[in-house]
């Protein structure tokens, strides 16, 4: 019978922590020039510079799905399925944040525009 906790487990916890930090790093530098990219079926259908949005607006990439854009933030506002996980993601306002609607294959993700980011992504 195996034990509950040992040295190997500490090693496992630390390596998962490090992995999570490594994935987190691309998102933490600079929050200026927030570019929201909307993908549908893996192709970019909208690129919005969130810092330049003056008038809030809503658009619908596919039937039943609605995306609302305001200054510095963007969110799913209506969903086609009853899970509504994409709406549950709430407002996206920082680089690296992502919301996905899997049934309709729509993804919103926020990126910056500086060069190091293009490299890491």
């Amino acid at each position: 019978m195996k034990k509950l906790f040992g040295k190997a487990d500490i090693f496992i916890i630390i390596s998962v922590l490090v992995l999570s930090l490594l994935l987190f790093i691309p998102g933490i530098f600079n929050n200026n020039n927030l570019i929201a990219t909307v993908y549908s079926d893996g192709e970019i259908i909208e690129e919005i510079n969130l810092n330049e949005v003056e008038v809030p607006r809503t658009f619908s990439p596919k039937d039943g799905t609605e995306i609302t854009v305001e200054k510095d933030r963007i969110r799913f506002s209506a969903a086609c399925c009853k899970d509504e996980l994409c709406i549950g993601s709430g407002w996206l306002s920082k680089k690296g944040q992502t919301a996905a609607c899997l049934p309709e294959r729509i993804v919103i993700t926020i990126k910056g525009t500086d060069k190091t980011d293009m490299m890491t992504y």
Partner: protein
Amino acid sequence: MKNNKYTKRVALLGIMGALALALSFLESLIPALPGLPPGAKPGLSNIVTMFMASSYSVADAFFITILKALFAGITRGSTAMLMSASGGLLSTAVACILLRSKKFNSGYIGIGIICAVCHNIGQLVSACLISGTWSLVFGYGPLLLLFAIVTGCVTGTVLKLVLPALNRIINRL
């Protein structure tokens, strides 16, 4: 009593299958926690597949996993079924290898964490394939991994605690 062995297997699969489905339904009642990616769940039903993998048979652990995916498909739609299947199959495969290996000497907490991480990796990869957008890894990955450490500790500890009792049931069958 030639059929005895099969009857026992059917009965055990029925009990464990029902337990896994009840646990995954129970999880779906927990509201989305603030700060966590929506859809992140504690993975309590993984305890059942991990138990089947460690004490019963590998084939039946996969049977429970597929049953869970079908249940998700019937109650929550085809996307949920795909997510459940991709995460579940990967984590069950890894659980079978780790729990049955004698050389791998980490405890139940470590195995629980690795299974939770594998579940997340399987789901993330299939989510990226469905949406065609690989940036999901950076958006959801870090928080899911941190959450996997917590849920892995919980499932590993519960598994260790209930194993003696469940093994007694199996031996009595």
